[in-house]
């Protein structure tokens, strides 16, 4: 079998990247329902929010790991944001800009490895960098009135840690799990499968 190392996106690349974004749009929606059902009080625990943050960043890293083409991380996160806006998310258009900033973080990480490495360390760095993008946006735009040492900095750090763990390591594990189902057979990620 020929290895697919061109940078041109095939139709499957585009559609599946977009589908990943869309599916996460739906998963976020169900997650929101579950969240409200399980524990409403948690939303008032500010640090808790930061720990959850990584979940919203998964599409960026997952897109990069699955598609392995320049722009995949950015495209996935931006489409996910646009989808949530179209579905009527409360933040409207602002999400799109936020999505672009977050996607850019992961994109830079994959670019730094010239789109050749898709192993756990790369995923962790990509996760941390999307987290950084998200944290910077929040740090300046939403959290500027809060105390620096006791809130803004811990919140930002927690966001990055959560992003590295949930979005980085999480997306890496998810890619491997997806590969074992055969759903990624059309992608290089699906062919890394080593029979154990």
């Amino acid at each position, binding site marked *: 079998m020929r290895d697919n190392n061109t940078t041109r996106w095939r139709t499957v690349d585009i559609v599946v990247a977009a589908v990943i974004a869309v599916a996460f749009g739906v998963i976020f929606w169900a997650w929101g329902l579950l969240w409200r059902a399980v524990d409403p009080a948690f939303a008032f625990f500010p640090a808790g929010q930061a720990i959850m943050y990584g979940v919203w960043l998964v599409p960026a890293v997952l897109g990069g790991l699955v598609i392995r083409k320049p722009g995949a991380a950015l*495209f996935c996160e931006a*489409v996910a944001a646009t989808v949530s806006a179209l579905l009527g998310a409360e933040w409207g258009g602002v999400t799109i800009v936020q999505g672009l900033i977050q996607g850019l973080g992961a994109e830079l990480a994959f670019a730094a490895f010239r789109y050749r490495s898709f192993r756990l360390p790369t995923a962790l760095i990509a996760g941390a960098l999307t987290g950084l993008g998200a944290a910077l946006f929040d740090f300046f735009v939403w959290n500027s009135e809060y105390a620096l040492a006791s809130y803004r900095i811990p919140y930002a750090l927690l966001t990055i840690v959560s992003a590295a763990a949930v979005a980085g390591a999480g997306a890496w594990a998810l890619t491997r799990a997806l590969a074992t189902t055969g759903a990624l057979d059309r992608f290089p990620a699906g062919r890394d499968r080593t029979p154990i």
Partner: protein
Amino acid sequence: MISFEPVAAPGAPLARRNPVAKLVAALVFSFILIATLDPVAPAIAIAVELAVLPLFGVRLRVLARRTWPLLVGAVGVVVTLVLFAAERSGRVLVEAGPVVVTSGVLLTALGLVLRMFAVALPGVIVFATTDPTDLADALIQNAKAPARFAIGALAAFRLVPLLGQEWQMISMARRARGVESGRNPLAKLRLFASTAFALLVGAIRRGTRLAVAMDARGFDAGTPRTVARQQRFVAADGLLIVCSAALAGAALTVSVLLGTFRPLIG
């Protein structure tokens, strides 16, 4: 359920404007208002937003239904600020151990909450009046977005309602096979994760198939595409963007003149 169609009267004068123009106008408006932390400018902005609501054909009820989660966010802002405010100026209103609520803190909270709404509403209004197909068309024709990517994303978006049904189907299939979580929250979370995973797998398979079907109809053949639906960007669309910038700028100017303006940076 997930709503995915425009929920506004499509004939309203501003709803009919070019989707790219509407989106840019909303973003310009939002990002000008992000620059301030005072309550006055956002209050004026919200008044403007509510005033143009009929021009977009959006009913107040629709707006309320889409933005109610912001109210939860507002409570979060107030609580966080009470606990972690950067400065506590003004008169002390409540003092209970480490919690010191001052008039300054409350004013800041008011500013933040109003700003949150002022920034979020334009996008919500615009997306409530925008059809995804029209948005993709306009992005391709007026914003020079690459057609393959815009159409590919649009095709994936069509799967949203199907994925909602798929979620129910997967849950039912599991139940039919004897798989359930009971009341245990941990088991609930596990079942959620496995259902979400199955949804993702199914979505990727569907996407792969859809891509094949699109290729079968010449999507990636390299022939230059034509467009069946013309989207025009006319003077009125440019005007919409200019007006939006001017209105947001005016709100800031009023705030500056009143001496209440507090820039985000500086």
